[in-house]
């Protein structure tokens, strides 16, 4: 449906070809499209271009497009520095914590969507989980650090997995609860009449129906977890456990004018999550807007 076709003209009536006004409008929207896309990608593209220049070219030339492409900046990240380790840590920590949260969280969400607990406890739990879901990490960073220190878990991937799993659980419960509510109760009841227990009915009937929601939720959780910085900064300090954002940020802190390495670190830092997002693009809009709004 386009905005320019008039709803008052029946479809059967042959319409005249595009008028000059229509073509001008079309041109206007084309320009608007380009402007909107340029707004979103120009900053990132300029970083990408810088990362492909040698440092000499960055400081001496002022052209935007690299004259001689070089991969030196990237090579330095993986050979001289520990970006391979950061990448492994990020992938491990993100995937394990999101998996735990999906398993634990969907069950809790199902209970909140289907059962009335005594005294309306379920509503309080739902409310509290939502508050916690919005809680900014900074307000509990000190006790978390002290606890990890006390337990000897500083500088381990385990500490990050536990913390991220907990935060992801709140995301999963919040999003999955509303997906479960959209599924008619009758389906499970029919299955239970046929001899399923509630739990098998949940696993056999409800979970498959909620699969699109599960995917959207997982995507949102993966993006927020991969991107998380503060906990990772505070809890880890060696390449054995540091994640990509921490690795990139600490590198930036050490090098001041090595613009080539800085931009390459930025590209490598964001690349995994951007690639992931493109791969799951079909489900992305729903996941991001639901996670951010609801």
């Amino acid at each position, binding site marked *: 449906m386009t*905005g320019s076709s008039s709803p008052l003209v029946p479809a059967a009536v042959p319409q005249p070809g595009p008028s000059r006004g229509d073509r001008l409008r079309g041109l206007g*929207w084309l320009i608007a499209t380009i402007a909107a896309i340029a707004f979103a*990608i120009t*900053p*990132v593209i*300029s*970083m990408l271009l*810088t990362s492909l220049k040698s440092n000499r070219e960055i*400081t001496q030339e*002022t052209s935007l497009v690299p004259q001689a492409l070089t991969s030196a900046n990237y090579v330095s990240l993986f050979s001289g520095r520990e970006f391979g380790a950061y990448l492994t840590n990020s992938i491990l920590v993100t995937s394990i914590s999101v998996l735990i949260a999906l398993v*634990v*969280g969907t*069950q*809790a969400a199902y*209970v*909140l969507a289907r*059962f*009335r*607990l*005594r005294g309306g406890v379920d509503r309080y739990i739902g*409310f509290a989980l*939502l*508050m*916690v879901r*919005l*809680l*900014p*990490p900074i*307000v*509990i960073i*000190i*006790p978390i650090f002290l*606890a990890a*220190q006390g337990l000897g878990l500083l500088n381990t991937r385990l500490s990050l997995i536990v913390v991220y*799993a*907990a935060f992801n*659980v*709140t995301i999963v419960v919040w999003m999955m609860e509303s997906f479960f509510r959209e599924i008619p*109760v009758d389906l499970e*009841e029919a299955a239970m009449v046929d001899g399923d*227990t*509630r*739990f098998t009915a949940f696993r056999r009937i409800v979970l498959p129906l909620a699969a699109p929601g599960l995917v959207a939720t997982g995507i949102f959780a993966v*993006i927020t977890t991969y*991107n998380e*910085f*503060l906990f990772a*900064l*505070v809890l880890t300090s060696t390449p054995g456990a540091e994640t990509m*954002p921490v690795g*990139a940020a600490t590198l930036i802190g050490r090098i001041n004018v090595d613009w080539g390495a*800085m*931009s390459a670190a*930025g590209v490598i*830092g*964001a690349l995994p999550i*951007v690639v992931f997002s493109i791969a799951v693009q079909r489900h992305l809009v729903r996941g*991001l807007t639901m996670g*951010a*709004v609801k």
Partner: protein
Amino acid sequence: MAVALTPGGRGRALRGSGLDRVLPVLMLGPALFLVLGVIVYPLFDGLRSSTGFYRFGRLVRDVGLDNYKQAFADPLFTEALLTTLRFVVLAVTIELLLGLGLALLVARERRFIRRIRATLLLPMIVTPVVVGIVFRLIYASDVGLLASLAHAVGLSPPQILSNGGGAFAGLVILDVWEWTPLMFLILLAGIQSMPVEPFEAALVDGATGWRTFIDHTLPLLRPTILVAVTLRAIDALTTFDQVYVLTRGGPGTSTQLISIYGYQTFFQFQQVGYAAAMLFMVALVFLVGSGFAVGLMRRRPA
């Protein structure tokens, strides 16, 4: 905790036997255990630390509310609060105006929206730390994108991160780039789900565009705007990653947001109790704000 089992929403008694009776507890348990242990307990633990005096990371003695008193006597704390407030108000206002304007303009152009939507998600997806790097490169006075552009038109390169006002403005612009798309998408969804009847009636009555906007669009959109602004504001209140990479709070204290100051008080100056008190106050502000946001969201028809 004892639970009664009534399948949700209906009075129908459909109960399995044995295990099914405790099923809700079993299914809810692990999630609650994780969240209570890893998030809620530390919140209260932080409250306890906030009344202590620490030396070398060890609790020396309890000092009651002294840490809180210290905060209000500390000019750096009040300054950080004011800077944060200025940042939140400025960034969120600009994002709202841009997002709303754009959403109103293009709400009916579905083809246009389809074309740009995936790209607009990019700023939200890119790791916040990397967003900081992106803008540090843009602002770099000698080699950045702005410097190149200035050079191309024959101007001297702008000095952005080396002066307080410039750095603060630079931070606001970063935030606007990162979050205007989200504001736009939320408001767009709100506009597209508005009923059409009031607008048809207004059209028949011959109301002007502006009157229609004030009389119909704004009131209908108000809940969406409130939710979007509140969520964005509580999120912006604790902005950390981007500042950490872009300026570390400098130059001077010009971009020292409360989260950065709290972090430094703990990790650089090792003042555990004082930092905990500061951050607990931030948590209180957050709890009020998010309680408000959650209340708003609950009132919306799901």
